[in-house]
């Protein structure tokens, strides 16, 4: 397994804020052990946005859960690798300590804001909670802070709406409230797991804008997890494409989209309806994502891959960066040169 050795061009001299290396996560199920993450490596620096893209089951959410120590227990466990945050290996620390850290420095927002908010508490109470619990503020002060946050994330009439309950807000506003809670304690890293998937396009755009603005203000690092290649393109600088528990391609988002070097990335881009002229047939990737219990030998993508050869069926391709590629652009494919030439 080759580590992803290419740091992003934008990585600061101080080194990455979070560096995940060769991370392996396993789930034990009644049908056997599933390797949900198989040697995932990436880094994020302060002020930078990394998009982790992939289909359901590719391991993108598991990656976030693992960092946040939210893996379902006892089924899920870290089977190897490290998650180094500011010099601390979170993978080796007890869950309690990681959660402590996550409650202040690493924050996460989820896809469905309604199910992440408590329906029986006023939102002011919920947004004020981190201030009260973590910083020990009194109610008045904490609610004042909550009000500030609600204004900052663009809740109209925040003064009166702070006493409303979650159901009285629209989906987009709820996501704004979730973002308010996530940024309450000035996190250094924000992980957003499908933050706009449940929202209308117009609202989606506003939320992505909000996240980008907040990042510009605070200089936090962001990991955007999405299945939608379009949504993240405006905001993220780098992308990591995941498939069957591995990162199959990584690089600047522009390079990855314009010159996909992995057949899976290429296939994803070609699957988008706007990729083909109106009236023509879409060009999907054949087959379906593999069953993690019975992964194909060699490259997991080989049964769906138009470029597959005998080598692909036998040897797992490492993430590599052939000469002449843009810095940071790497793909886990034996035949990347041909894939690139084919475009």
């Amino acid at each position: 397994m080759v580590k992803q050795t290419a740091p992003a061009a934008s990585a600061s001299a101080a080194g990455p804020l979070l560096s995940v290396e060769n991370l392996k996560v396993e789930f034990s199920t009644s049908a056997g052990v599933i390797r949900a993450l198989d040697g995932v490596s990436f880094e994020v620096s302060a002020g930078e946005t990394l998009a982790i893209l992939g289909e359901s089951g590719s391991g993108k959410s598991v990656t976030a859960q693992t960092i946040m120590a939210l893996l379902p227990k006892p089924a899920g466990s870290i089977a190897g690798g490290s998650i180094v945050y500011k010099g601390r290996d979170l993978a080796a620390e007890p869950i309690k300590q990681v959660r402590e850290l996550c409650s202040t420095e690493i924050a996460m927002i989820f896809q469905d804001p309604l199910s992440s908010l408590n329906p029986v508490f006023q939102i002011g109470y919920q947004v004020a909670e981190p201030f009260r619990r973590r910083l020990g503020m009194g109610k008045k002060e904490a609610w004042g802070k909550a009000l500030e946050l609600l204004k900052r994330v663009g809740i109209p009439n925040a003064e009166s709406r702070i006493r409303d309950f979650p159901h009285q807000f629209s989906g987009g506003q709820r996501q704004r409230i979730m973002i308010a809670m996530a940024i309450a304690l000035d996190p250094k890293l924000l992980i957003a797991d499908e933050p706009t998937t449940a929202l209308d396009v117009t609202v989606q755009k506003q939320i992505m804008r909000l996240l980008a603005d907040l990042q510009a203000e605070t200089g936090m690092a962001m990991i955007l997890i999405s299945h939608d290649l379009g949504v993240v393109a405006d905001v993220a600088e780098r992308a990591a494409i995941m498939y069957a528990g591995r990162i199959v391609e990584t690089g600047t988002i522009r390079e990855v989209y314009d010159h996909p070097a992995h057949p899976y990335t290429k296939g994803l881009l070609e699957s988008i309806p706007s990729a083909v002229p109106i009236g023509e047939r879409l060009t999907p990737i054949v087959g379906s994502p593999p069953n993690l219990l019975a992964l194909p030998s060699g490259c997991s993508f080989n049964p769906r891959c138009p470029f597959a050869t005998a080598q692909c069926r036998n040897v797992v391709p490492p993430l590599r960066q052939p000469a002449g590629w843009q810095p940071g652009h790497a793909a886990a494919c034996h035949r990347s040169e041909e894939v690139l030439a084919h475009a």
Partner: protein
Amino acid sequence: MPEPTAPLLSVKHLKVAYPVRSSILLRRIGENVAVSDVHFDINPGETVGLVGESGSGKSTVARTVIGLIRPDGGSIEFEGRDIAGSTPRQLRNVRRDMQMIFQDPYASLNPRLTVRDLIAEGWLVHRGVVPRNRWTAEVQELMERVGLNPDYASRYPHQFSGGQRQRISIARALALRPKLIICDEAVSALDVSVQAQVLNLLDDLQRDVGLAYLFISHDLSVIEHLCDRVLVLNKGVVVEQGSARELFEHPKDEYTKALFRAVPVVRPWLDSGS
């Protein structure tokens, strides 16, 4: 496609309102108008798209057309028969010709039934569509048709991925050989690569069987790709309708324009001009 003489479905002046009830006695104290004065026709073999944001009334239109909601005004005619004024018994035959695929393949399939039973369920209700001795063979054919391995017929929905479950929903809808399928966000929950497969499948089925679709989606690129005609709904009112090509190239209404502008662009660096 040449214009046939009679539309398959004809919706006129459709109005749907949800009652607002008092908290204790549940008296009707008002109404929320979900959809008002919606007109459209669907011809055989045609795909009509409904777009709009959540709350615009897209799903209400779909549910009313298929008879899950009673309209408060207007008419819905399917092959000349008025659905709005039909008794449930009369509706049954219409429902065979009109099937629906829902957004969430996790919620819309009974978890206790095997794929075989799910697909065959409609045949229990609508006797005579497929003779019982043909059920197993027909289920196999349908599964193959939608790209599922027929060996999995005795599996349960939880054993399938989202894309596969949506294929089960499609097979289930096809089982009764309908003329119109209403797809309410039918591909929205699917991954991109799988979404394209399902869209191609819908396209193939239309070509082979002459199906008409009423296609509801918030994903405008899907609508643009698939639909012949498009209706844009905003707050229960059709703000613009026309051929897909015309509408996407020259949107007239401000709301339509705003909606189109918000569509995420995969490579924003390519068209900074727009």
